[in-house]
């Protein structure tokens, strides 16, 4: 059976890797980020979410490592692509967090010194909220 993890799973605040006909293997977020380190960055164009919006990760989804992106469906059934920054956001938002704090929390881990990541953060959050991968939470 396939040995290479083909799927990244987020379920109830925990990450795992899995493949067809395999059982899921729990891993840390660092392993996940290593797994997707080579993926290209997904540009965002959605309107920005307000800085005081509190976001929280949804309970679960499973994305397929598909070429140089992670493919997953949003709540509307449309296919979306995730990159390493998205995954880091989802990990940080395991506990509700104000959107203005998300970039500060993850920037160093994902792209030290890269202002574009921070600049587009609020657009990313809008995307992830629309996809149902984040929900509006209460702090």
């Amino acid at each position, binding site marked *: 059976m396939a040995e290479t993890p083909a799927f990244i799973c987020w*379920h109830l605040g925990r990450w795992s890797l899995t493949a067809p*006909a*395999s*059982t899921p293997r729990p891993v840390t977020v660092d392993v996940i980020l290593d797994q997707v380190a080579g993926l290209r960055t997904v540009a965002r164009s959605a309107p920005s979410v307000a800085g005081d919006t509190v976001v929280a990760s949804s309970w*679960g989804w*499973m994305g397929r490592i598909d070429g140089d992106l992670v493919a*997953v469906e949003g709540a509307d*059934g449309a*296919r979306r692509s995730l990159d390493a920054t998205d995954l880091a956001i989802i990990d940080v938002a395991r506990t509700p967090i104000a959107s203005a704090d998300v970039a500060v929390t993850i920037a160093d881990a994902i792209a030290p010194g890269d202002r574009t990541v921070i600049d587009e953060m609020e657009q990313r959050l809008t995307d992830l909220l629309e996809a149902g991968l984040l929900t509006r939470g209460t702090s």
Partner: protein
Amino acid sequence: MTPPIPVFTPYAPAHGPTLSLGMLTASARHAAGGELTATYSIRRIEPWPEVVEALATVDGPAVVLCSNYVWNVDAHLEWAERAHAVNDRVVFVHGGPSTPGYPGDVERFVHDHPDTVHVLVHGEGEQVLVDLLRELAPHLRRGDGAHELEPLPGTTIRTIDGNPARGPDRARIDDLDALPSPYLTGEFDHLGVEAWRGLIYLEATRGCPYGCTFCDWGSSTLARVRKFGLDRLEAEMTWCASHGFPFLAFADANFGMTARDVEIVERLREVREHHGLPDRVLIAPAKNTTRHLRRILDVFTDAGLSYQCQLGIQTTDGGTLADLDRKNIPVEHFVRLAAELRRRRHLLECDLMIGLPGQTVESFRRDLQFMIDHEINHKTWPTLVLPNAPINDPDYRERYAIEVDERRRVVATTSFDRADHERMLRILRVEIITNRLGLLRFVLRYLQWDHGIPAVDVLDRLASLTEPDVDAYPLLSTLLSNYVARPVPPVGWTAVYDEVERFVAVELGVPATSGLRTVLRLERFVRAAPGRTFPATISLDHDVVAYVRGALRRLYADGRPTGPDRPLATYGPGTMTIDSDPLDLCTKGPYVPRLATWTDADVTAVTQYPHELLHELTMTYDSSAFSGIDDQEERRRVETYLADIADRLTVEAGRHHPELVEDDEPRSTANGHTVAVRIGRSAP
């Protein structure tokens, strides 16, 4: 003055106290006017850690009573080793259904545990214990153990040379009311509801007239059914209610076998009216008569009691039943009962078993198909070789060439080999995910009804996805191997059902017609996913709601599955509305607990957890019970979750197919809501 010899009756913290322990301590304490209390200090039942701690301070002999069941015997033996380490003068007495009785097993049990098995009690233990303690006292006072004892009737003694010496069999206890009630004599007064995890057992009868070979009930209690008195039972039910127990279970093998059981539940209703408890009740109904079951369930419903009632069918295969020495209710009778209970809005659940002597892959497939055809929620349990069940008789094991795994699960017999067993398990796992958890429920029915492909054939094909198929159907393969542990779709539901469409076309030869596409869209629509909001309505090319209701109509009338009268494609457009998400599946996710592995509860218990949004064709799940969860914290989470679900779902139970039955007066449910319960008329 010589200090009394302490007698400990421990329970493993992971499993909690049992009724049997209190029966033992009550009998010992009150025998012959309390005669034994002059010699012994008979302690209330207590958890093992406290017993070990106390034993460390005992300067002298002590007695420890272990009541062994399949779920706790290993824990008892492990704790007994710790107890022996702190006090090597303890005499360990083992009884209960999982204390071996067959020759060979007894020798192994004694030899394998030289420090922690001194006396074995076979059969009912209360009166044996009294005699044993009486005989044992002088030996303990002299500083001897139990090895000098003459084996009493109903016991085996470890002799001085380390071998077992067995006494004659002991007659059953004829007058059960001669046994003091542990509830009414204060044996359990020191334990709160929390210690019991809310569930407490009562015995209305003992014994089982059947000798099903996989079960130790008939053999361990010597078959003839004996009864505890009604007034005593009522007093015990009152004790349970007044002490705050919400969940009461009857430990009877065949509840509802006699009219007296109707009277018992009538009294239970009165208890509930006076005390507001219990809320829930669990029974194991009679195996080959359902004469009184309908009235019993009516009383539960009228009283606002949630109930769990699982009919132990085990298999519908006549040949297998003969090999098991078992007689079920006739299938026709069962089918009519199912229809009647369905009309009366009662939940009907059935137990199947996997690994039965005489079973084949084909007979197991037929059992699954039967349950799907009749829309009966079922649980499938592994066949265990219980120590005192006839299946463990050496002659029987040899005749059926029974092979077991390390957990004593039957994995091969003369009728199936290990590969067949694996195949049955694979089919079962696929059935759980696709049918009971519902991921392909409408697809399976559509393929069967409109294309003549039995649902179990589809399950079998999915279960036999092999390595080349994995590449062809990566999402299906991932879903089936991951869903129980991680109930999320790979990529998403749209992608999964696109792949199902391809699977159906390639593997089953069914093209993607408008009928198939309609049910696939419906499956996608009814799946929980983050971010969804309700109510939500979908427009469909064909009216699936009318199609499914039409197909199931006869199940409400005479119980016979007939399927729809015409294909889905002939139905005009329709809509389906999801009213709400009462279980918060879209915001919290379906919940699948972590399960222990002492049985195949990891395979079966997930079926008890609702995974559905609320719509016109929602199946009603029982959510009142769980099993196989050893972890205390996990159990508490599950209990909280299930209590929440039970509260929310009761109001919805039986809301489906309202047009098929007559109106009756509304009845209140356990959670205070009111639903229109409809009784009577056959389907139009």
